[in-house]
C-alpha cells in the first residue's frame, strides 16, 4: 500500500497522507466488503482512489510538472546516507522515479500497478474501473514515455543490461 502511494504521490509526506486516508476508508468500508473481488484488489482500489483524489486536490493548487516538483524539493525515495547512494543503480532509480512521477495520472497508475506491483491486467482493470483494452493502451503509452525519458540519459541507460 505504501509503495503504491509513494509511487503515485511522488514524495513521502503525501504518500503518508494518502495511506492514512486509505486506511481510514478501509476501516470504514470493511463492514461492507462482500468479497466480490479479492481483498488485495479491494485494498489496491481504495489506495489508488485516495491517491488520485489527493493528486487531483493538489492539482487544483499547484502544477505537477516535473520542474515544479523539483523546485518543491522532490524526494521520492527513502534516502538514507549510504555509499550506495551515489551508485549507478541509485542514480538510475532516482531518474526512473522522477519519470514515473512525471507521467500523467492515468498512465502512472497503470504503470505502477503493472510494472512495479506486478498486477495482472484483469486486476488492474478492476482496480482502475476500466476495461483491459484501455489499460493496455495506457501501459503502452506510459512505457513509451518512460523509455523516452530514460533514453535521454544514455550514460545511465545505454548499455546492454538485459
Amino acid at each position, binding site marked *: 500500500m*505504501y*509503495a503504491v502511494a*509513494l*509511487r503515485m504521490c511522488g514524495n*513521502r509526506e503525501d*504518500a*503518508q497522507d494518502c*495511506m*492514512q486516508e486509505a*486506511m*481510514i476508508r478501509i*476501516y*470504514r468500508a470493511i463492514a461492507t466488503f462482500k468479497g466480490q473481488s479479492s481483498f488485495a484488489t479491494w485494498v489496491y482500489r481504495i489506495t489508488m482512489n485516495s491517491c488520485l483524489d489527493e493528486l487531483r486536490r493538489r492539482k487544483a493548487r499547484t502544477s505537477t510538472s516535473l520542474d515544479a516538483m523539483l523546485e518543491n524539493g522532490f524526494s521520492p*525515495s*527513502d534516502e538514507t546516507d549510504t555509499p550506495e547512494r551515489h551508485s549507478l543503480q541509485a542514480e*538510475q*532509480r532516482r531518474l*526512473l*522515479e522522477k519519470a*514515473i512521477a512525471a507521467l500523467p495520472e492515468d498512465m502512472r497508475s497503470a*504503470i505502477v500497478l*503493472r*510494472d*512495479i506491483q*506486478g498486477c495482472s491486467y484483469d486486476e488492474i482493470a478492476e482496480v482502475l474501473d476500466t476495461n483491459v483494452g484501455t489499460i*493496455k493502451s495506457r*501501459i*503502452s503509452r506510459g*512505457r513509451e514515455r*518512460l*523509455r523516452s525519458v*530514460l*533514453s535521454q540519459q544514455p550514460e545511465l*541507460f545505454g*548499455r*546492454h*543490461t*538485459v
Partner: protein
Amino acid sequence: MNMNCTTFRANLDAYIDSELDRKTRRAMEEHAAACPECGVLLNQAMQAVTLCAELNEGLTVPLECQAAWRRAVRAEADEKAERKSQARSQRRARRNVWVRSLAGLAAALVLFFAVGTTLDMDDFELPSSRDSGRYDSAPSENYGAYEESAAGMSASYMATPAGASNAAGDVLLESDGSTGTQTTAATAQKSASDVVVLRSAARSITTKEFETDALFVNDLVSEYGAYFESRRVTGNAEDASRMLKATVRVPSESLDNFLTALDVVGTIIVREEYAEDITSDYNDVAARLEVLRSQLQQLNEMNAKAKSVSDLIEINERANEVTAEIEAYESRIRDWNSRRSYSSVSLTLTELGEDAPEPVQKSLSERMKEAFDDSIQWLKDFGQSAAVFGAALLPRLAVWLPAAIIVIVLLRVAFGRKKKTK
C-alpha cells in the same frame, strides 16, 4: 519469420509482458539483433521494466507513517464508538422520557384504583364532640308535638274505658272488647302524635347542704305533680357520707321545667337525657290489637249464632286465646302509655364533706374544665374509633400494600434512573 520495425514496436509490450508465443518471441529477438534501432529499443524497454520491478526493493513503510495511520484509524474507531454511544444514549433518553411518563401515569392509576376501590367512606365516621351517647337531645319538634298531644291526658296514668278524651291515635282499652281506635276532636293532632317518644333523664348532684337540698327536692317533686317511684337514703351525717338515690316520675309535659328547677340544687356533676322512639313498636302493637279485637268480636257474634255445643266449646276456646293475647298487648300499651305520660328521672344526691373542695358552680373555668373533659373523652373515643378503623384497614392492606409496592417500583423507574444516566 521476418518482422519489420512496425510489427516489432506493436509487439513490444506484449514481449515485455511475456504474452507472446515462442515463435513470435524468437522473431522479435532476431529482429532486435538485426535492427540496431529496435535493438536499442528493446534494451531500454527491458531495462526500464526490470528497474521498475526492482524499484521497491528495500522499501519499508517509515515508522512515523505507520504510527500516523494507526493513530488515524484509532481516532476513527473512537469517533465511531463515540457516535454509537451518543446515539444509544439519545435513544435511551428518548425511551426514558416515555418510560418516565408512562410510569408516572401507571403509578397514578394504580394509586387511584387501590384507594378508590378499597376505601369506604363509612370508615371515616368520627364521633362528634358531644355524640358519645351521653347526650341525646330529644328531637325538639317531637317533644313539642308530644306536649300538645299530651295536653288532653288525665292525671292518672291509666287510660280508662269511660270515654276519657284521649289524643287521637291513642289506643282505647275497652273491657267489652269493642274495637279500639277512636278518633276524637283532636284529629288535627293525629300527625303530631304519630311519633311516640319515651323520655327520661338522670341527674347526679353533689352538695354540702345535704338536708336542705333533699328537702328542696321533695318540694320540687310535689310542685310539679311528680311522685317518687323509689327513694333511698344511705350514709350518716357524721361522716358526711350521705347519699340520696331516687327515681322520680315527672309528668312529661313538665319534665323540662322540673329539670331546669333541679339545676339550682348543689352542683350537677352528671346530666343525662334520653328519648326512646318507640313509634314503630307502638303502632305495631296497636295494629295487632285492632286485629285481635275484631277477631274477638267476630267470635262473639259466632257465639250468639252457634248451633251446636261442640261449636260453642270451640268458639269459646278460641275466644279465650284471643282474649289472652289481647290482654298481653294491652299490658304493653299500658306500660308505654304510663312512661309516655310520666318520664323517669333518676336522681343521685351525694353529700360532700366540709373539707371537700368546693366545686365551682358552672363558672367559666368549670365550663372550660367540662369542655376539656369532653375533649379528652372525645380523644379517647377517637382513639377507639381509630383503632377500629385500623382493624378494618388491616385486611385492606392486602390490596394496598402490593399496590404501594408497585407504585414505589414504578416511581423509582420513573425518577431513579435520572441519577444514573450521565
